[in-house]
């Protein structure tokens, strides 16, 4: 029996018991308690009937830098970060164009790599103005968060992997070199050993 089934059984039992009390018990206080139980049981059953999604903390995916063979693999890692830890897909769409923020279809061919890096690490520097709403001024700006700071806090390697993904999915050549991926603890080292 799954957790949902168990809770549904409990909910149904509470509603059933409440109904039986209302049918057969005359004591008014007990009847009111039964009525409240039916309402609460019913509410729980409704809540159990809708999609059950828990919000899990982002998994700490460790990518073995040494095992990355080519740029395509780096882009694939970037894709996972884009839809996972980076939470980019929470606001940005790719191709559907119905998101709150700029659609990223073909973004890799529109923007340079450095521009993208700046957009992620200093989002208010330029990009926001480029995406200013037409018409009346916004009461509050929908600010793009600093991706390299908390709460998202992607590392430099992870940001480079995302850029590789954006370039790759735009049909562009990935300009992030594997040698740029830094080994944690020894910045600048050309040797690729460790995790992203």
């Amino acid at each position, binding site marked *: 029996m799954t957790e949902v089934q168990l809770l549904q059984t409990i909910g149904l039992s509470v509603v059933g018991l409440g109904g039986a009390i209302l049918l057969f018990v005359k004591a008014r206080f007990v009847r*009111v308690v039964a*009525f409240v139980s039916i309402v*609460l049981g019913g*509410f729980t059953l409704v809540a159990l009937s*809708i999609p059950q999604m*828990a*919000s899990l903390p982002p998994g700490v995916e460790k990518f073995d830098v040494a095992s990355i063979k080519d740029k395509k693999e780096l882009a694939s890692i970037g894709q996972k970060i884009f839809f996972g830890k980076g939470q980019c897909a929470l606001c940005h769409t790719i191709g559907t164009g119905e998101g709150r923020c700029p659609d990223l279809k073909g973004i890799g061919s529109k923007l340079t790599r450095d521009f993208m890096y700046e957009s992620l690490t200093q989002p208010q520097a330029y990009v926001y103005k480029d995406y200013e709403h037409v018409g009346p001024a916004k009461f509050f700006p929908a600010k793009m968060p600093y991706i390299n700071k908390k709460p998202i806090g992607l590392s430099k390697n992870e940001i480079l992997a995302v850029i590789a993904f954006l370039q790759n999915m735009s049909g562009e050549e990935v300009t992030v070199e594997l040698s740029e991926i830094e080994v944690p603890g020894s910045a600048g080292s050309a040797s690729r050993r460790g995790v992203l």
Partner: protein
Amino acid sequence: MGPHTSHRRSDNRQARQAGAVVPATRVWAYAALVFMLFTVAAPLGLAWGQEAPAGPATEYRDILPGVVGSRNLIWIIAQQHLLLAGFVLGVPIFAWVCEIVGVRTGDPRYDTLAKEFTKLLTSAYATTALFGGILLFLLIGLYPKLMSYLTDVFFPSFLVYCVLFLLETVTLYLYWYGWDSMQGATKGFHLFLGFLLNVFAFFIMIVPNSWATFQASPVVITEGSMWARAWAATWNPTWWPVNVHRLIANVVLGGFICGAYAGLKYLMAQSKEERVHYDWMGYVGNFIGVFGMLPLPFAGYWLMREVYQYNQQMGITLMGGFLSWLFILQAMLIGILFLGANYYFWLGIMYRIPGSEAKYRKPILAMLVILLICLGVWMTPHSLVASLEEARKMGGTHHPMLGVLGVMSAKMTVVNVMILVTFMSFVMYWRAGKQETATWAKAAKVGQGLILGIATVVILVLGVWGYFVPAITRINYFSTTQVLVMLFVLLTITPLTALVLKSAKTTTEMVWGIMPPRAAYALVLNAVMVILLMTLMGYARSSSRVHWHVYGVMQDTSPYAYSPALGYAAAFMSLNTFLFCLMVAFIFWVASLGGEKKGGAPGKARVKEAVRPAVAGAR
């Protein structure tokens, strides 16, 4: 050494000389004191004698993991504390307003009602403090790292909180125990005490609000004094929206709990006098609950705007992410609350005002249909639960027709319409059984009809127009205009109706105490809905932080760093609501043990008063 001490010594000597025996209770008390000293002092002594163990500080402790778990335990205790706090902060507002109405109208029923509810405060206050203490100890024990951090930031406000508690306690004692002695010439001072009680209660509410809102929208500064840092953290972006939202919600809670209590007592009433009294009390409770409920959606709307302004991701997590279905449940609960409140008004028209049934049957039916349609729109989800095949047929998860109703433009429109319908239910109840005599009454009625009609059209047009403008235009201009139009209706029709009815002739006397039992159940249902809503939105507020204790500052690294799915959470909400209802019932019962004379149960004198006019519409 003063004379007082020597006098006591001399007493003791006399007692010893007379061979008096120390009472057994006192012996136990001394024994308990010695035991406590020993249990406290022994570990302290041990700690004094040895070095603190080396190693990292404890971040989390757990209680019966897999069975209860620290997070669930905190959830239950915190929720009970918060609901009780809402109750003890809502009741003084409710009681004070009733007391003022009593003084203004000269109707002693209001004073008695106010006193009856203030009587609850002493026991409810102690229970709230008890749960607050339990919560604090559990938080310190189970989440030491988080509590240490929060103490670092907020220590000055802890001190302020203590002082506020002292002031509140003293004022409450004076307010309650001085009720009978402060009548007549000193009634004004008693009202002032009630005012003070509410001022302190308000600050007692907003200080811990700052701790909770800081966790969601922290403002951390490293420079400045301890007070400066605490003040910056207190005045965080969501602090005031939550303060306003909770203040209004507490009034609603106080009103509907009063209604539920009256409903229960009405069902259990043994005499006609009791039925008359509790029927009237149920009306007043429902009226105050509905009155508070009308601005509540807009306070919530403001809070959400602030959340979006602070952090777009948090806003999306709430409204468009894993919590989006929660708002369908919220719509369901608020919809039922609207239906329950209106249903109670309609029953009042049908039963308390004989002969009104035929006249109001059709308008009531129309209102019911409008409310149900609005509720249907409000509950329409933006994206539907569909299998892959169904989604393919629909061309996505948005239903081609229903998908149009699942967006904010439609929802804001129906919320405003529902509020207008509820308001008109009240106006209808107010007018029932009266005939206008003023020469301009007909013109006033036409004017009211025009205001209502035009306002409804404007709200609907803006709602439809909202689909064709950028979201930000809709949020900033259209939705705001809809609210202003709705408020305009409330603020014009209310005084106009009052003026027309001032000279009106009563054609049918209102009869109290003959409502059917289902009216009492409607009152209980309304209270349950409000409590459930508070538990639901508490879960939403807490879950919007996702895996952070303090959003973006301190991550939750415990095994409970996840938000459970809605079904599981709803089971907890139901459990918490049930426990709270039982506790409130217990508090009411305990308060009733104090004797009918002191608290003021219904008596014959009050039955005579029952035919006198009450608040607007209660007549």
